[in-house]
């Protein structure tokens, strides 16, 4: 296990290196640089912009730029955001907790709902409630996240006034206090629900179908032949088997969350990495853009690793060595 993880992590290095090259060249290939469009006849002048270009090294040979970037990167210096003018690391440190909070909350919501609904539907398939859950899930799967987001804001925030429509916390609360946490949760619920809706639907259906599949397996018959009560068969024997794939999805969820955060955070003006990415995209904030792109790729790698490792942990049939 340890050896396996180590090998996987080492294996990630060349991959990360390749990705970094791609990221770098993509950024290079993107039109304009961070100073393009910085036109301000009252406060700046073209000379200043040229000076900045020179100073930021945009005129150096490409390999020099890459070497500088990647060696700094390896040392934890991600550069300075050209938009916010602070180190990208600080910028990310500011936003990361929000994204994590959003992601984790949405995961918790996803898994809780998926378990409750999936277990019920799997145990009592083709009943009214199962059909209802199924229908609901199909709908959830078909509603694109941004439509769901806008709808949620209009309905729950403006119409019903239940949830805030933007931000991550109420300024009036003091960091670290209970109120502060409550406020954070209060702000995250709606975006988290929207972000998790599709996952919930997918997982519920998955769990349901898997439970139905598993309930026809031979080992279930064995358990019945032993005189095991029905509830124990479902909550223990079957669930344990059905949960395995579901848990391993956790790794891949990271990818989904990265994609989802991009849209959700933007709609809910929730200051996280997704929103940061899009704004760095529109403002040509390359240091931020490149760091985030690399970071997201890294997250994907980590997600895959987690998925594999979890698989090895939860499924005794998989041995990782």
């Amino acid at each position, binding site marked *: 296990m340890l050896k396996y993880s180590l090998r996987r992590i080492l294996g990630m290095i060349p*991959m990360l290196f*390749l*990705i970094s090259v*791609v990221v770098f060249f*993509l*950024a290079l*290939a*993107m*039109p304009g640089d961070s100073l393009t469009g910085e036109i301000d006849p009252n406060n700046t002048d073209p000379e200043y912009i040229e000076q900045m270009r020179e100073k930021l090294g945009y005129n150096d040979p490409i390999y020099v730029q890459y070497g500088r970037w990647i060696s700094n990167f390896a040392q934890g210096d991600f550069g300075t955001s050209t938009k916010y003018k602070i180190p990208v690391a600080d910028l990310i440190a500011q936003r990361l907790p929000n994204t994590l909070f959003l992601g984790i909350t949405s995961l918790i919501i996803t898994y809780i709902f998926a378990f409750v609904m999936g277990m019920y539907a799997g145990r009592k398939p083709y009943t009214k409630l199962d059909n209802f859950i199924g229908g609901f899930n*199909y*709908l959830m*799967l*078909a*509603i*694109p*996240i*941004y*439509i769901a987001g*806008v709808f949620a804001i*209009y309905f729950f925030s403006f119409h019903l006034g239940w949830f805030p429509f933007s931000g991550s916390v109420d300024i009036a609360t003091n960091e670290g206090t209970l109120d502060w946490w409550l406020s954070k949760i209060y702000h995250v619920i709606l975006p988290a629900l929207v972000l998790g809706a599709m996952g919930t639907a997918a997982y519920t259906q998955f769990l349901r179908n898997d439970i139905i599949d598993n309930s026809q397996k031979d080992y279930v018959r064995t358990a019945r032949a032993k005189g095991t009560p029905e509830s124990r068969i479902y909550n223990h024997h079957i669930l344990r088997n059905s949960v395995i794939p579901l848990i391993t999805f956790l790794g891949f969820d990271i*990818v989904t969350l*990265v*994609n989802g955060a*991009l*849209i959700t955070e*933007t709609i809910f003006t929730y200051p996280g990495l997704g929103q940061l*990415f*899009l704004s760095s*995209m529109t403002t040509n904030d390359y240091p931020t*853009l490149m760091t*985030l*792109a690399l970071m*997201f*790729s890294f*997250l*994907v*790698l980590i997600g*895959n690793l987690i998925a594999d490792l979890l698989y090895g942990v939860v499924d005794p049939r998989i041995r990782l060595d």
Partner: protein
Amino acid sequence: MEVVHNKKSQTPNSTTKPQKSMSPWAMARRKFMKNKLAMISLCYLIVLGILSFLAPYITTADISRVNIGDMSLAPSAEHWFGTDTSGRDVFTRLLYGGRVSLLVGISCTTIILFIGTLIGSVAGYFGGMVDSMFMRFTDFILNFPFLVFVIVLNAILFGIVSGIWVLIVVLSILGWGGVARLVRSKILSEKENEYILASISIGCKPGKIILKHLLPNVLTTVIVQATILFATMIVAESGLSYLGFGVPQEVPSWGNMLAASQQPEVLQNMPWIWVPPALVLILTILSINFIGEGVKEALNPKSYR
């Protein structure tokens, strides 16, 4: 009356030639046709497709013309779904939008399936070095967070490739990894079947084995995957357009229509502008999902193995 001579009827056995028996495809088709939900969905998609692609013949209005005098009109006999904030007929735009959304969906799905199947089957069939090389490359592609890199690539290719093809190319470049992996794993397991050994032993060459023996059997998986991809790509198109990184703004796609209606005033007071694209989009995805389920069930090998 004239007697029509069928040349084929002179072949020895064809006089007694019995009705061809049902191929697995035919069986799947029949099973599929029994699935009401899937059939309704299919009809919906077909109607939508026909309407969309015939849009230029159905409606004569210049869809891109901004009609300053007719802005934000409620539905009426003249404008069935009303007009949008630029005075364009929503119904017409909806049809044209369908053209774009469906075209993006279909093109991406086709390209992705092609690349993914090609790479996946070659890697899976030959194994060894070829496999490791191709799969490293696939992993590499898969390690890019999809949306993030779609947005970046889209920005780069913008202006180099024209119109909606930017998005199609970008989505395809970044989207084939999953299919390749799936096809490979499917080929790997299908390869273990003795009929592959049999085909080698009767002297089939690798190309023929892949094309005639492996692919038809992998195709079931690929078809199911195709429905998922189709839905994903339509959602991706509309989502990206909504964020402003999708098809060019002047192209009417459902995503652009929705993006264009993201003014609070429109959302609140002019539902006719955004409800139709949203509804059609949701219904389309719903239909594709139902069709996917239907296909999956119809192709379920348990029925004939």
